[in-house]
């Protein structure tokens, strides 16, 4: 059995209540840090743990914390990013629904480490039920003396508030989130300055994902070194994976980083294989923004090594043959899935969610949606595929925030790996409207790479 850190007690009845959570040992991380550790000690442990941000970018959490500016007399803020809107990702919702106190405990530990006396949890507005759950958990923790003034007699004060969003994917981008929290449109800010210097209300701010914050309690209780022993290489610890699509057992799984992708898809402990006896065609491994890979490349790298669920292994081969762990939104497609349709669907998403500040993103996402719609509905020309490639190239790297890249990558990777499926749509529009391209060669074993000695010759 793999080690469970975040979801350890998920099946304990009543675990969403303070009393049961406390009986399971909850809030002992708060006792430990407030009574025996300095804020710097906490930052040090998190650094040692190797924990990397779970919101998508994978930036080391301890390092981010150590960058926080500490000017005299200026408040600092911790803002938890619970906007969770990346298609394919639903782990934060799961965690907040079932284990709200795991997040609140982590919020207290992290706020203490950063010296924040007011912290916010920005939850996407659609998650009204989760907002109520968190508000109740905060009230319970406060009644028990774990929040408010002079917590456990330590002299440390902290209030946590929950802020609803309004339905906008872009507010998951940290500077857009801060704008939104200030009561404005969610337009990402130009960086620098980074939030660590000028964030919420112009004050030093750390923005972290729900899962990153939740992991810190275990780290301070058990030590950063212990956390770093779990996982593989620079992918330390456990990760929540949201598994969806054409699998037998969709759901949220806590895995130890380094688990083979093949085991994750086919083992009964996780996805339980492809539904309805179908065959695997493609996977989007880290949420809609990361490159899609055909079955053969998601299971093995081009060097023939088994691909692992880790930051490094999923990225092996760069964008030519690899992808990214991202937020851990693992979308599985079977042989009946249409890659063109799915790519069009994602393009529509990014077009809808673009905030509109940068022309390449605002216009480019619209173009991509339109061209893909044309191809999907049987009106595409061969030159459209090249046009599509051209448009995505012109977005990538030319925008204020990474949404532009996130919109370009799914399109680029779909053309890179599934170009013949696009061409089939153009050449056989009628067949494409009525049926689908099927598995084709996408699961075929890759050619075995030449042995190094041959390459030298």
């Amino acid at each position, binding site marked *: 059995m793999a080690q469970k850190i975040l979801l350890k007690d998920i099946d304990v009845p009543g675990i969403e209540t303070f009393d049961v959570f406390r009986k399971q040992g909850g809030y002992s991380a708060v006792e430990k840090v407030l009574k025996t550790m300095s804020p710097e000690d906490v930052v040090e442990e998190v650094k040692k743990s190797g924990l990397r941000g779970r919101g998508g970018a994978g930036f080391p959490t301890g390092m981010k914390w150590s960058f926080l500016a500490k000017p005299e007399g200026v408040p600092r803020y911790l803002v938890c990013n619970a906007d969770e809107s990346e298609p394919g990702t*639903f782990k934060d919702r799961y965690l907040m629904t079932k284990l709200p106190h795991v997040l609140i405990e982590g919020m207290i530990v992290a706020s203490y480490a950063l010296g924040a006396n007011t912290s916010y949890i920005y939850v996407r507005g659609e998650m009204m039920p989760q907002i109520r759950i968190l508000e109740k958990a905060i009230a319970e923790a406060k009644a028990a003396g774990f929040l408010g003034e002079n917590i456990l007699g330590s002299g440390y004060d902290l209030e946590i508030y929950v802020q609803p969003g*309004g339905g906008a994917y872009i507010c998951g981008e940290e500077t857009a989130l801060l704008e939104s929290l200030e*009561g*404005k449109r*969610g337009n990402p800010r130009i960086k620098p300055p980074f939030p660590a210097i000028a964030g919420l209300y112009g004050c030093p701010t750390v923005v972290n994902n729900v899962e990153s914050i939740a992991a810190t309690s275990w780290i301070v209780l058990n030590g950063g070194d212990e956390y770093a022993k779990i996982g593989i290489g620079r992918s330390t610890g456990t990760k929540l994976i949201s*598994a*969806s699509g054409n699998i037998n057992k969709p759901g949220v799984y806590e895995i130890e980083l380094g688990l083979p992708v093949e085991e994750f898809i086919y083992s009964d402990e996780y996805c339980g294989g492809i539904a309805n006896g179908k065959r695997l065609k493609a996977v989007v491994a880290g949420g809609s923004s990361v490159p899609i890979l055909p079955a053969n490349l998601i299971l093995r790298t081009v060097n023939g090594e088994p691909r692992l669920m880790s930051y490094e292994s999923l990225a092996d081969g760069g964008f030519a043959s690899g992808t990214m762990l991202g937020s851990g939104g693992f979308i599985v497609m079977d042989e009946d899935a249409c890659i063109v*349709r*799915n790519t069009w*669907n994602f393009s529509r998403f990014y077009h809808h969610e673009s905030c509109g500040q940068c022309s390449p993103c605002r216009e480019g996402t619209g173009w991509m949606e339109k061209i893909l719609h044309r191809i999907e509905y049987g009106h595409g020309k061969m030159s459209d595929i090249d046009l599509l490639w051209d448009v995505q190239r012109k977005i990538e790297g030319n925008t204020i925030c990474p949404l532009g890249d996130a919109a370009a990558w799914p399109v680029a990777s779909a053309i890179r790996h599934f170009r013949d499926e696009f061409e089939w749509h153009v050449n056989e529009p009628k067949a494409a409207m009525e049926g689908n391209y099927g598995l084709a060669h996408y699961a075929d074993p890759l050619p075995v790479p030449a042995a190094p000695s041959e390459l030298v010759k």
Partner: protein
Amino acid sequence: MLAVKEIKFSEEMLKQVDEIIKRYPEGKEKSALLPVLHLAQAEFGWCSTEVMDQVASVLNIKPIEVYEVATFYTMFHVKPVGKYVLEVCRTGPCCLVGAEKIIKYLEDKLEIKEGETSADGLFTVKGVECLAACGTGPVLQIGPEYTFYEHLTTDSVDQLLEDLKGRKQ
């Protein structure tokens, strides 16, 4: 359509607004805008200009500051909607498990197109982007509580519509 209601924040609502404002540092009351818009929409059904003007006045900000925000975020209805807004996820993962069929079924059954309101004023069908429930799709949600309905089938949709029609208030 909607019963005509006087657009005015009640005492109770104003008390809630005061509580919300306390979450932010002094001078940063504008941060209350999204929570207060949610409060207003839950009470008045949609964010008409009158509603937005009220929100501006209770938060002591300019009406334009409310308009530009309400129109940015998809959850705020700036046009009249039916009594129940069925917000159905239309994004990739849900489509892999049949969301498009559910949307089509709702359109046919209610004799409307996505984005429209049924003739009896009860239902608006709105295709929305990923609701972070990809593991339990197809899904829809209904405000103002934003209750989730998961693993939708045509049968469960029939049942849901019947239940909603039967509700008193």
